């Protein structure tokens, strides 16, 4: 895997907006309450992004080869074997906004604002602390109520399943959100390959336990390793992906490399990172956060503006990089795709 300096290779256009945003914030920070500085229009990076040079399309094999060459030239390492969708030399996405028209968050924002408690409880900590985390070799063991249990190496996962771009909103339970161009594949495709038995009702995911590389696993912050779970029908939904990359490149360590779950209609903590085991079971898994605070975090954790967290409202959220609030959408704006999963279910009781 190619290791590069993450900050230095972010093009100026991706960071420029944050700088502009911060310049806006200076008067307030300086104590001068010049409220006029906070213009009512929210700061977005759409104009900046629009002027970004078009990057080569990953789907063209020639472009992918050119990218491999560029990478090899700059880093002295080969990226041979990376699927086209992950082989970009620069952060790449095919679109500049999500389907609702909101601009994507920048590579820099997404890779420096990570809730990854194994490394740090501070969101800007994992970018530094996860630097030496090793993601090769890596296996994902699929066990439990399946006809064909199997361990996939990460390279097998790259090649067996088509790696594609999925632009999703991520809504954290802490009431902030981002729009992120993931690269990955349908979890359902992997499950079909191992053939779940009819009695399997839930999918349990387990993160890696590696105390020497994950400093906080030496402290009882949560019960380690991190565990999450989905119902089988939730796991089979077309929105549910296993992400291997972001912005056209393999996941950074702080994002949960080499492979993580992304369930866009659920709060971010459901999207477990650095997965080493997937188990099909008939028992509802107890997630790490259910275990830590059962009254605050439930199994479903569906984004729902009408069901508040015990200590704060979930009605609004702040998009990272923007000022002001926006209303939180039911199922994070994916109601059409997933509402049918929960027909007849009391979403207040099953929070």
């Amino acid at each position: 895997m190619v290791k590069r300096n993450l900050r230095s290779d972010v093009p100026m256009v991706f960071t420029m907006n944050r700088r502009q945003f911060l310049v806006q914030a200076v008067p307030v920070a300086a104590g001068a309450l010049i409220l006029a500085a906070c213009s009512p229009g929210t700061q977005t990076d759409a104009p900046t992004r629009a002027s970004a040079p078009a990057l080569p399309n990953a789907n063209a094999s020639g472009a992918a080869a050119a990218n491999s060459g560029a990478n090899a030239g700059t880093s002295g390492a080969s990226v041979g074997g990376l699927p086209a969708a992950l082989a970009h030399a620069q952060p790449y996405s095919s679109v500049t906004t999500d389907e609702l028209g909101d601009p994507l968050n920048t590579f820099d924002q997404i890779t420096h604002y990570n809730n990854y408690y194994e490394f740090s409880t501070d969101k800007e900590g994992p970018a530094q602390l996860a630097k030496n985390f090793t993601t090769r070799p890596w296996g994902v063991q699929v066990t439990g109520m399946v006809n064909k249990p199997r361990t996939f190496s990460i390279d097998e996962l790259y090649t067996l399943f088509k790696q594609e771009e999925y632009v999703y909103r991520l809504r954290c339970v802490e009431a902030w959100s981002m729009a992120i161009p993931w690269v990955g594949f349908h979890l359902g495709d992997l499950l079909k390959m191992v053939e779940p038995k009819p009695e399997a009702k839930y999918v349990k995911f387990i993160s890696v336990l590696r105390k020497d590389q994950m400093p906080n696993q030496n402290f009882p912050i949560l019960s380690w390793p991190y565990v999450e779970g989905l119902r089988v029908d939730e796991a089979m939904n077309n929105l549910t992906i296993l992400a291997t990359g972001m912005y056209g490149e393999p996941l950074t360590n702080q994002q949960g490399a080499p492979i993580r779950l992304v369930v866009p209609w659920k709060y971010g903590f459901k999207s477990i990172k650095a997965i080493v085991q997937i188990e099909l079971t008939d028992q509802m898994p107890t997630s790490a956060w259910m275990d830590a605070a059962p009254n605050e975090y439930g199994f479903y954790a569906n984004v729902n503006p009408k069901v508040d967290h015990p200590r704060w409202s979930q009605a609004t959220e702040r998009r990272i990089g923007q000022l002001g609030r926006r209303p939180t959408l039911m199922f994070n704006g994916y109601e059409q795709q997933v509402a049918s999963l929960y027909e007849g279910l009391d979403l207040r009781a099953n929070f």
Partner: protein
Amino acid sequence: MSGTPNQAKPISQKNWLQENWLRVVAHLGVWGPLVWLAWHAWTNDLGVDPVVTLYNVLGRTALILLLLCLSATPLYILFGFRAGLTVRRALGLYAFMYAALHFTNFVALDYMFDLQYILADGIQTKPYILVGLGALLILVALAITSTKGWMKRLKRNWTRLHWLIYPTAMLVVLHFYWSAKAAAKWEPLLYAVVLAAILLVRVPPIRKAIVNFRQRRKRVVPKRAAVSAAERAAFITPTQPGE
């Protein structure tokens, strides 16, 4: 410590800086966090979510200044440290300034003056915001009435009104505790312990016990000092240099 004839001379010799060093330190030091924020904003280093950074730095500074303000009297009770009393009011006012900036961040940058969201989302369902708002309103009243004019006008009621600083500090710690997530609760708990210690010293029986204990020691101290001074005087000549 005062009252002994020996010390009358040094006091009169104290220059302006020796008399007012804590005032200088306090009035300069309190601007540190604000300068830090301004500098990091200028260098584009306020973090991925500057609003959260502003919340944390402004709120934490307000609480720390409030605790420093409240520790002036306990420090005097415990150690006879008088200088703290001279900056007590200033620290309280600076704490209010940071609390007001923290609140401004909430209204202006986080919620962009959207009253509907602030009421429906912020106030109604977030108990820690209500608690913080309550604390801020009390601080407003205390800041307005902090002048000598108001002191005279309110007479005994001034003391009664400003006694509210203690429950206010409790509200602030509770505000921090409720807003912190599970893994970060240790920090507000630490402040709660500090606040409890500060308040404990002021509980009348404890205060009396401490004052009595110090006065008993005080009576012994001059004798000891005299003996040791005499000893030193006696032995100063025979002592070998470099020993």
